């Protein structure tokens, strides 16, 4: 029976030793330490990875195909386990997520440098451009204005930014391959379609000088058309530009299309 005793002793040791290292992580001093946080945007349609030119079915017996899929993300900030918020420097805190620039796994990377080292539990980001940034005027936009113009993400300065561009065609019971252009944005200062999204991380995101955690964010494009509101493309939603009603519906739908699938700490 000695053998049994040894067995338990060994198992106990292994169990204890595997627990013990948790204690020192809380006392880790992170003052002054910064690291990089990578956001991986991944566009999908339901459980399918989004692919250009693929026909996707939606409600109302309609389907759509896209050749352009991009949107603006801004004001990224993360909250740590103690409730402190780190906001990425404002001037650089605006990005275009363009499916055409995705890697072979269909992911678009945004690297946030010099993020305070901490254990983060939550992320908030904006979809589009908020009124404060717009109020800075054309000169206050820095390089982003040029970048947005080149990407076709601007109407005129007076009208402002296009927060998204979904360009392609749609088909319904009555039409085949009609033009589809969803260019939702705010309209000057008269219509505010900027939305914010807050998502909890499924696991703690540990930013350190030596580790670059990745947050895998999924945008379910199907929800843009069939989200909070199901829209009919053949009934006013094939061309969405500056109309107060349709742009607001699309903005609200898109706001709820995001989720964090998983995080990697490495």
């Amino acid at each position, binding site marked *: 029976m000695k*053998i049994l005793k*040894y*067995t338990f002793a*060994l*198992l106990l040791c*292994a*169990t204890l*030793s*595997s627990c013990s*290292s*948790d204690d020192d*992580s809380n006392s880790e001093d992170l003052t002054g330490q910064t690291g990089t946080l990578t956001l991986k945007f*991944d566009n*999908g349609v339901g*459980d*399918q*990875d989004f*692919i250009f030119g693929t026909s996707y079915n939606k409600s109302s017996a309609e389907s759509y195909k896209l050749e352009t899929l991009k949107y603006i993300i801004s004001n990224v900030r993360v909250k740590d386990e103690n409730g402190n918020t780190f906001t990425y420097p404002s001037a650089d805190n605006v990005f275009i997520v363009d499916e055409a620039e995705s890697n*072979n*796994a*269909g*992911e678009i990377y945004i690297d946030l440098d010099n993020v305070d080292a901490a254990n983060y539990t939550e992320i908030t980001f904006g979809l589009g451009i908020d009124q404060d940034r717009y109020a800075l005027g054309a000169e206050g936009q820095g390089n982003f204005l040029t970048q947005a113009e080149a990407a076709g993400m601007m109407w005129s300065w007076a009208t402002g930014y296009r927060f998204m561009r979904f360009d392609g065609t749609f088909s319904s019971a009555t039409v085949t391959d009609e033009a589809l252009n969803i260019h939702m944005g705010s309209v000057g200062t008269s219509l505010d379609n900027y939305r914010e999204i807050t998502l909890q991380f*499924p*696991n*703690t995101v*540990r930013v350190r000088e030596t580790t670059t955690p*990745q947050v*895998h964010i*999924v945008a379910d494009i199907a929800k843009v058309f069939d989200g909070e509101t199901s829209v009919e493309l053949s009934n006013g939603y094939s061309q969405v530009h500056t109309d107060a009603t349709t742009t607001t519906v699309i903005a609200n739908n898109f706001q709820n299309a995001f989720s964090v*699938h*998983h995080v*990697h*700490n*490495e």
Partner: protein
Amino acid sequence: MKDFQNTKTILLILAIISFTNSYSCDLCGCTTSSGSASFGDLQMTSFVGLRYIYQTYESKNGIFDNSPTSEEQFNTYQLWARVPLGKSFYVSAILPFQDLSRKFQGNTESINGVGDMTLIGWYNLKIYKSNSENKEAIDFSTNKELTGHSFNFGLGVKAPTGKFEEELTDRVNPGFQVGTGSWDAIATVMYNYGNNNLGLNTTFAYYLKSENKNEYRFGNQFSVSSNLFYKLKTKKMDISPFVGISGDVYDSIEQYGETLADTNGHLYNCSLGSEFNLKDFQLGLQYTLPIHQDFFGGNVEAKNRFSVYLNYKL
């Protein structure tokens, strides 16, 4: 006749256990260095030898149903041995060399190196026939007739002799590693039965995995495997064809003390093979086919496995 009935009962129990629990795979490179493919040969001989295990997996490289897949090939070369220490004790050891590669959209990447070593100390308990009136009693004293039943109790460790690369954990298949980087405890019980022409080996093993220096901990693992073999004696050699079933159940992986979603799983296999005993040498062939599996949220699929070993009997 009594023996035959015992065997039947035991077989039935094992069949039930094997279907309700599971055992077997060495999942992938690192988590695989032992378990599935058993710690030794069928006949429980003492040996030193070489074993080669070839496994393939298909992993999804992305999170969607239509994400592209990569194909992973695991070549494991093992130096393995079972060495007796006195009458009732023996030691089994496995030192693997891993050569893993993965093909994705025309690109191939490889990692290779020494894997994690496994060392197990065993105590062998033979069951003797009872000579008392009470047929149910089991007498442990010596100088008795053997029943053919025996138990082996093993305790061991898996040492982090292989390299664990944290960067690779970003893969859909976290098992694409030559080592886990952790010290793991192994507790195992083996039941053997053999008569003149039939034999049965059943192994239960529990792997208690510890956290490695990257605060990454592979899930604890429970394995069961059972092989039934037939001894065919010819003039030149003994041939032992066998069939087996096995199963492995894995707990979730933990990192920084937090559970990672979709990292648990199970795998049930059936296998078919034969062992050839010729004088001092022993040759074994085994083909293993998954029957049912669910790994890493269905993102990793184990394909069939092939192993071959050549041992020199001590």
